């Protein structure tokens, strides 16, 4: 829904929460049910599962953390793997911060806002924020992202107790929600040929690089190559137009 420039802040926050509850929050919430089960499998308390959703706020990092513990990886290796998998937040956060920045905003508020950057708030934010009056974007974004976080915390909590009791096909289905939803959110945000190239090449190169590079560097290498090619194609077309 659109936000009017003269709305009070609670109304803007509610509009953000409502947009999240229309669909995105539920998908993230269902997607993070699997985290609860992974935490349960390694014998960690339910509080750690729910806190991982609130504090890490990145499905793949959480999957890596609990799955690596289950696999018996060294702590240093776990931290490095999570760090590499989360490197995407550097370009993602850099891309969305200029939309949320306001004159006179404190660094603390920016750090707080950056915490909510994850696939949903990012793809939806890049799509929706430009159409919202600049002075209302922060409140809208917080309403949207917090609604996602509350639903997801409930999802993680229930997954901790539920998923073990679920038949295999449905348990597998819940774990597959994360990649399916990531891809659907990415395709929802496609605008130009360059975006399509970035997604297609990113998909194709990651398994190839995993095969030939490894050591945790594979994802960032494939992302840099695919992203740079897409960027050059976008520039070319802009120059030609």
């Amino acid at each position, binding site marked *: 829904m659109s936000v009017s420039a003269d709305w009070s802040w609670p109304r803007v926050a509610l509009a953000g929460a409502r947009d999240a509850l229309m669909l995105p929050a539920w998908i993230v919430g269902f997607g993070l049910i699997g985290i609860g089960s992974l935490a349960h499998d390694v014998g960690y308390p339910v509080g750690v599962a729910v806190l991982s959703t609130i504090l890490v706020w990145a499905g793949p990092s959480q999957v890596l*953390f609990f799955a690596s513990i289950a696999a018996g990886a060294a702590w240093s290796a776990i931290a490095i793997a999570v760090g590499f998998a989360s490197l995407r937040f550097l370009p*993602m956060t850099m891309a969305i911060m200029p939309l949320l920045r306001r004159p006179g905003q404190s660094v603390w508020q920016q750090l707080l806002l*950056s915490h909510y950057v994850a696939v949903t708030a990012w793809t939806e934010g890049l799509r929706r924020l430009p159409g919202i009056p600049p002075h209302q974007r922060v409140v809208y974004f917080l309403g949207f992202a917090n609604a996602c976080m509350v639903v997801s915390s409930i999802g993680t909590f229930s997954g901790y107790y539920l998923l073990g009791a679920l038949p*295999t*096909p449905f348990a597998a289905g819940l774990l597959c929600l994360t990649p399916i939803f990531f891809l659907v959110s*990415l395709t929802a945000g496609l605008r130009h040929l360059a975006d399509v190239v970035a997604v297609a*090449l990113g998909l194709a190169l990651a398994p190839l690089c995993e095969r030939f590079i490894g050591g945790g560097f594979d994802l960032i290498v494939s992302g840099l190559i695919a*992203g740079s090619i897409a960027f050059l194609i976008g520039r070319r077309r802009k120059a030609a137009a």
Partner: protein
Amino acid sequence: MTQPIALLDGPFWPYLALILFAVLPTEIWRWLAVGLARGLDTDSPLLEWVRMVATALLAGIVAKLIVSPPGVLAAAPLFVRVAAIGAAAAVMALTRRRMMLAVLTGEAVLVGGVFLFAKF
């Protein structure tokens, strides 16, 4: 199973491990980005490049989760996992991006595929 670090072990170990080995390595990139984004203009070419790399990285995560799946998702054969992603993408392309329908289609293919082709 990775054992706790002996020196720091105790009832709060799982929380400490979460902070040290999951929260910090994730959050540091977001904080770093806040610093780096200062003064960047919304339509600068640098930001366009950064956005493309971020998009490709996210797509890469999708491919990795499909090729090397976590937990019980490994029960689904590779072709079922790929078919699920393909079906979701096809719905997005053919129905003017109806997200809910795309997610449900992908899920239906995966759950149905596990019923049909997996031994569990």
